[in-house]
């Protein structure tokens, strides 16, 4: 009888739990869906002026994939130049508003100069300390873009050794500690001024741990990084100690657990708007006011923002503004454009009008296309090193009987 009761209770609990778990999963999914989450993920590994790093591109890809699964709209940029990073940051900023949770992840080289941190693009030519500010991208610029979000998370896995240190008067590794602006959380792969190893595996040590922890339901943002710190310190024998700086006023969960809400912010929308306006109101940069208009289309300072914008635009040149920044805006982009074979939309010169170039040279030849068949010259992806064949390519039909060449008198 006792066994029967235990069996009945077990069955009952299983039957009751199953739908409860399903409900919980649905609730979590719904909570994540309801929240607007946007991330910019950058991984720089193949530096033109410094030794290549092993893991940042892998790290960026792994983080992008996981964040996408966690409901983030991710823009991924790998091996990016300074211009590409700046464009990506601008595009990222456009996606943010007072209801969006923003996350910025960077893996690659980072440097500090006079207490300011810079992430280093792959095309940076750094030959002195001052060149860091002109060749790098200031982390402050990124933080400015995040201002508008109620919760912004910045993760910098950029504390590797300084590959340009011979060009510096003072040798210093790692990043400087920054105070996280209100509502933000900044995490570093290691303590300020220290360096982190690139790692021997597929991902850096810090990213490996981060990937594990952000997928555990019910861990608050602070708990995630506390666990990352503990595990990284343990696995590195205390040589690498991740660090963070927070001024969060609410809680954030990558995956909410039982009974947790995803975001609790103690600031009202009006307070966030006021704080943001206070920061930009004296600015001379039209982008700040454009950002405000996007973030607060019915904002309380909209009429002043419009006025400021009109005045500032009058002062600047009349540049035609592209309507959008191309492929930087879509979800899963990298800085590499995929090779696209152009389909036969252009007619063949070979078919239409043979050239009168006589005595055509070397035996190789011919591409172009005939009729509506595929074009045989396919644009190569950006990122492929540029080489030029020494062979002569022409659409002129091969003719072994040289024709006279007219020479200008």
């Amino acid at each position: 009888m006792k066994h029967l009761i235990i069996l009945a209770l077990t069955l009952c609990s299983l039957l009751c739990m199953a739908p409860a778990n399903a409900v919980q999963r649905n609730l979590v999914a719904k909570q994540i869906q309801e929240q607007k989450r946007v991330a910019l993920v950058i991984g720089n590994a193949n530096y033109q002026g410094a030794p290549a790093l092993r893991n940042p591109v892998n790290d960026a890809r792994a983080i992008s994939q996981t964040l996408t699964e966690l409901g983030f709209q991710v823009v991924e940029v790998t091996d990016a130049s300074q211009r590409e990073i700046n464009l990506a940051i601008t595009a990222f900023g456009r996606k943010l508003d007072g209801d969006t949770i923003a996350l910025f992840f960077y893996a690659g080289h980072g440097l500090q100069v006079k207490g300011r941190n810079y992430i280093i693009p792959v095309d940076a030519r750094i030959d002195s300390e001052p060149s860091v500010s002109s060749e790098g991208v200031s982390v402050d610029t990124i933080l400015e873009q995040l201002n508008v979000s109620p919760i912004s998370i910045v993760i910098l896995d950029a504390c590797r050794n300084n590959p340009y240190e011979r060009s510096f008067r003072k040798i210093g590794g790692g990043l400087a500690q920054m105070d996280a602006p209100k509502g933000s959380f900044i995490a570093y792969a290691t303590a300020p001024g220290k360096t982190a190893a690139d790692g021997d595996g597929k991902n850096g040590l810090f990213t490996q741990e981060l990937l594990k922890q952000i997928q555990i339901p019910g861990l608050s943002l602070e708990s995630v990084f506390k666990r990352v710190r503990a595990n990284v310190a343990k696995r590195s024998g205390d040589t690498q100690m991740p660090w963070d700086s927070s001024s969060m006023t609410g809680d954030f969960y990558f995956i909410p657990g039982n009974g947790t809400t995803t975001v609790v912010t103690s600031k009202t929308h009006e307070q966030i708007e006021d704080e943001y306006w206070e920061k930009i109101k004296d600015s001379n940069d039209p982008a700040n006011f454009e950002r405000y208009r996007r973030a607060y289309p019915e904002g309380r300072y909209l009429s002043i923002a419009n006025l400021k914008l009109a005045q500032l635009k009058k002062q600047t040149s009349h540049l035609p503004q592209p309507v959008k920044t191309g492929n930087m805006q879509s979800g899963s982009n990298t800085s590499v454009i995929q090779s696209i074979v152009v389909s036969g939309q252009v007619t063949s010169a070979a078919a239409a009008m043979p050239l009168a170039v006589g005595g055509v040279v070397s035996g190789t030849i011919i591409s172009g296309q005939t009729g509506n068949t595929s074009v045989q010259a396919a644009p190569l992806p950006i990122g492929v090193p540029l080489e030029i064949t020494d062979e002569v390519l022409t659409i002129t039909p091969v003719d072994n009987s040289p024709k006279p060449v007219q020479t200008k008198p």
Partner: protein
Amino acid sequence: MRPSLLFLVFSLLVFAPVPSLAGSQSGGEVYFPVEQIIKFSKQVEKKLAEKGARVALVARVGRPASEMPEGMHFTHVSFAVYSEITTADGRKLPGYAIYNEYQSNEKPDSSSLVQDFPVDFFAGVTSLEAGVVIPSAELQKRLLETIASPSYRELHDPHYSAIANPYTLGRQNCTEHTLDVINAAIYQTNDIRKIKAVEKAYFVAQKVNVSAIKLILGALFSAEITLSDHPGAAVTATFETIAAYLQKYDEGSEVIFIKAEEPTP
């Protein structure tokens, strides 16, 4: 590609030649030994590669400078796109493919889109020199997308005029098509009316410095010249004006001029 005899005689005797004349055609006379053309073509390709250009504007000189109207030097502009080129025997070689709008040989008032290679492009030049604009990295990306998309073909108007007005519809020459593709890439649109509005607002066209009477006579005697798309003074797009437009609005773009290297003794 056979320029009208009547027009050639006419233009030589009376008419100061207009911009794209003969310059936007493929084939025709060859003024330099093939070896020199090949050498120069490779020089241009290598310069583009050295500059890291995935796509660039390349211009050639199809008429002697003395015959060109004031303010015009280059006669034909195209896109050079860094590509993987498959040869007839199936090998894949790296180099630049040239995307042209060429005036038709048979019908001088029409054009077609033709993809060829630098040797073909420079085959008929009267001077071994090239004008090149290397757009910014961002614009190069967008141009690659646009050239590979149906927009590139959709923006082509086969009704050709050597002095097509870039501000209006109805006639198009190689420079106008190039400009339209550039603006399609910048503004991420293939709406030709929007593109024309942008060009009216920001692009400064070249006034065709040929007397009105000559223009009218040219329009009467040659199918490749028409004034129908010029509501006022005749203007057209040139390599020089497109280069100036990109220099002004495409931060990071670069204009270079390449001349054939002196032959080594």
